[in-house]
């Protein structure tokens, strides 16, 4: 009898991390050997306020299953106010995506300080688990890319 090999769902997850807190938090998670799934790929940005909604939509357009943005805790921004603007922008953008019928679990913002390696790792584990429960992102995928 032939056993059919089932395709395991390997989500594509983009994590934008600010250079000063969250990227350092991810480094700490690494040096503390706190595991999280390899599906998470980090893009370093100077500050959470550098993240343009275009980047997030583009990720989804190119087939990402989840996008997470990590920055310094409110009040701790290296540039003082960057994460406050990021917070408003992402709140409105995520609300809009939700309004368009995209599962709101596919987007997340988390504040992770340079000292919070544990939080970084748990956040990523949680987020990946959430994406697994939601499955492949069919609603925002760019059909054009998938057909070729």
């Amino acid at each position, binding site marked *: 009898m032939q056993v059919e090999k089932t395709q395991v769902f390997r989500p*594509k997850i*983009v994590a934008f991390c600010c*250079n*000063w807190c969250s*990227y*350092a938090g*991810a*480094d700490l*998670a*690494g*040096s503390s*050997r*706190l*595991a*999280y799934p*390899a599906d998470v*790929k*980090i*893009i*370093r*940005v*100077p*500050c959470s*306020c*550098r*993240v*343009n*909604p*275009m*980047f997030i939509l*583009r*990720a989804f357009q*190119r*087939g*990402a299953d989840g996008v997470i943005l990590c920055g*310094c805790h409110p*009040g*701790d*921004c*290296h*540039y*003082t*106010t*960057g994460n406050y*603007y990021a917070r408003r*922008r992402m709140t409105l953008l995520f609300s809009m995506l939700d309004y368009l019928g995209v599962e709101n679990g596919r987007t997340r913002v988390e504040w992770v300080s340079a000292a919070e390696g544990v939080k970084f*790792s748990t956040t990523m584990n949680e987020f990946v688990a959430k994406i697994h429960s939601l499955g492949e992102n069919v609603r925002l995928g760019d059909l054009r890319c998938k057909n070729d």
Partner: protein
Amino acid sequence: MQRIGVFVCHCGTNIAATVDVARVVEAAAKEPGVVHAEDYQYMCSEAGQLKIREAIKEKNLTGIVVCSCSPRMHENTFRQAAERAGINPYMVEIANIREHCSWIHKDIEEATEKAVILARAAIAKVTLNAPLQAGTSRVVKRALVIGGGIAGIQTALDIADAGYEVDIVEKTPSIGGRMSQLDKTFPTLDCSACILTPKMVEAAAHDKITIYTYSEVEKVSGFVGDFQVDIRKKARSVDMSKCTGCGVCQEKCPSKKTPNEFNRGLNNRSAIYTPFAQAIPNVPVIDRESCIKFKTGKCGVCAKVCQAGAIDYEQKDEIVTQNYGAIVVATGFDTIKLDKFDEYSYSTSPDVITSLELERIMNAAGPTKGHLERMSDHKAPKSMVFIQCVGSRCADKRGKSYCSKICCMYTAKHAMLIRDKYPDVEVTVFYIDVRTPGKNFDEFYRRAVEEYGVNYIKGQVGKVAEKGDKLLVQGVDLIDNKRILMETDMVVLATAIEPNPDVRKIATMLTASIDTNNFLTESHAKLRPVESPTAGIFLSGVCQGPKDIPETVAQAGAAAVKVVGLLAKDHLVTNPCVAKSDELLCNGCSSCEKVCPYGAISYEEREVNDHGIRETRRVANVNSALCQGCGACTVACPSGAMDLQGFSNRQILAEVDAICK
């Protein structure tokens, strides 16, 4: 077309144990634009760097990707290597395959696959990198110290002794700070004034130090090396150049009902006053809210009695604008308010006092001329109870979660001094833990117990109640597991300390980061303890965390050295990853200007040539010396005119695309 080299580091087994390095090299070599790919044991070693330099030269590389540890670790190393080989240091990108990959994944297949994707993202980004030139900015050889307590004075003295100009801005009418309110200091029992006053005098007399008392920092702009600061010199109503400090005005002032801040409100002062006898400058100020002349227009006694004619009711606030290369925050602390601790009867009984109030009572210049007495009936106490950790180590919102650090020692000091001077007074200390790390600290505490007979009881007090003219203290002795109910004459609360409430405002002006307890954050908890993460801002004293006088003085000196190290430079190299606006796309809407935390964006009317159409447009202009490269403006800009060099829209999108491929 870029010619890209990819260098994959084994980092011993740190990377190679979980990432198949050879496969990463193989995959990277297939990426468009990559003309060279190799791996090596330790890329950061001299031999590894040599490989990079050789490859750049041999293959005429225009950009390189190093797949290694975090860029926070070795980005600079590889940038320098690239520069030595003759290419622009900003043509280097790092793929973090150690912290973000090999160290957190166990499965070789998964980790290798991820490492390849991270390498691809870095290659996609470096393809779009452009050479950037770091600029330079000037260093103004002058420092500002905010706060004139012992921390500020010591920092200013050390900077000034190194030959640089320093200005001290102090909010109150005199420098001296909390230390000037203390009577004796632990563990040597030096008289606080005796060791502080000479320092105050030295600062005042130093030709490199300018002191602005009764002044506040109002506005800060600029950046490391060149901050521009507005200092508000509040109207003193006394001409500092004329006043001789004779004190007659204070004596004759008919308004004597204002709580004396220096004595923590235990007695009253006149409306025209100097906070204490050794004040520097020894020039009084008129407290306009209490002054009869200012309230009713009638009085003017001080002007009449002043031989020097120094009283000036018309004096106005003055703004001094000055440029500084570095700023030191030394704003110090205050004790927390006790209004939420009803159980200790602080607000109802005058005989329940804070330790800082006891300092004033014990001080010869204080409200009781140094006699130990109850504030209710001025009788000498027969017994006293000290309660430690009032509001410290408190998880709820009433107090502070941290240990205030100094209380154990000053309580031992108080207990010892009282037992020494008034041997008939019974002294009991209720403690949770006695914390005495420090040279001669534990010996000091033991002396209080063993030589002076201070009664230490382990157990926090549950309640202090007034009972007739006595105070009833209810507690337990946790060692004996026994209830303690004792009557006493005075209760002293070792009240938690907190950063000066003004520090939040100052931190915002300085864009210095601050924690939830309002302590300023240091750049690195271990290795950069006196630097704020904001370049050019340094921390001195309790504004950074609880500490005692010797620690404060040590930190003040350390901050001064950091300042001197900065001021000794003629120029600073600036970060070239700054925002840049495309004048042809700019609408002139000002959105970017509004979100810029550094005021780096200004607008100007500029003639532009838009594909043959010449017209004058209102366009954004980024001051690359002020810009720190956060990128807030790039997202605020609807037309995409504003972009960030080194992290451009297209670079980040290329990374997104590479990851999602």
